[in-house]
């Protein structure tokens, strides 16, 4: 028997996830108002970047309207162009959040100079000399 593949099954196979639904659909927004700051903020990351379609779930028309509205709102200083995010140290797992934005990595700790203990060094050379004698 041949395995049947429905269109639904293929869609779900797309990286094993449910299809995202935009909040424009869930809240039945008919007109993306560029003055509605609270709505538009939901399409921006915490760094004030416009969220990608794959994150927001917008179709291409919605994404175009949202982008246009955000850009209008930015010109009128209703929304920021950028906003600084302070990263906490010691939590490298939060390096990237769900919108795939790059965060500055916390500085790596420099390895200090390696200290040799003189006694160990001496025994090491002795062993090496002994090995040479055996070989000859």
């Amino acid at each position, binding site marked *: 028997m041949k395995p049947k593949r429905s269109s639904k099954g293929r869609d779900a196979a797309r990286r094993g996830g449910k299809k995202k639904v935009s909040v424009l659909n869930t809240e039945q927004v008919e*007109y993306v108002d560029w003055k509605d700051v609270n709505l538009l903020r939901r399409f921006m990351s915490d760094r004030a970047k416009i969220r990608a379609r794959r994150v927001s779930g917008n179709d291409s028309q919605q994404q175009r309207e949202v982008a246009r509205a955000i850009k209008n709102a930015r*010109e009128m*200083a209703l929304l920021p*162009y950028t906003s600084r995010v302070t990263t906490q140290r010691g939590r490298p797992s939060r390096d990237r959040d769900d919108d795939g934005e790059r965060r500055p990595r916390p500085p790596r700790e420099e390895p200090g100079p390696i200290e040799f203990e003189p006694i160990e060094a001496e025994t090491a050379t002795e062993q090496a000399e002994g090995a040479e004698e055996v070989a000859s």
Partner: protein
Amino acid sequence: MRAYELMVIVDADVDDAGVKAVNSRIGELIAADGGEVVKTDAWGRRRYAYPIKHKLEGIYTVFDIATPASNLDELDRFLRLADDVVRHKIIRLPDSEAERRGLLGTAAG
């Protein structure tokens, strides 16, 4: 007749009389060729999302306008030249949205 939306940011240092002067001038310019300011929404002082001219806030006003396009050039020119106006934006409203707000119903355009 078409529906437009106008947002004006007046400098926060301007007093109420100054804001009124700007608003009435906008009304005059719209009325010049048979337009009408249908609704005036004074937001008042609002903090900018980023500083403009080293100021942190401005006085916002939003106008819903029904006007023939012939008025807009003069209006835009005035807003660009007015020293008290920090920024302005004129948006053409799509017909569906204009209808929802009842902008063109009274004008019978």
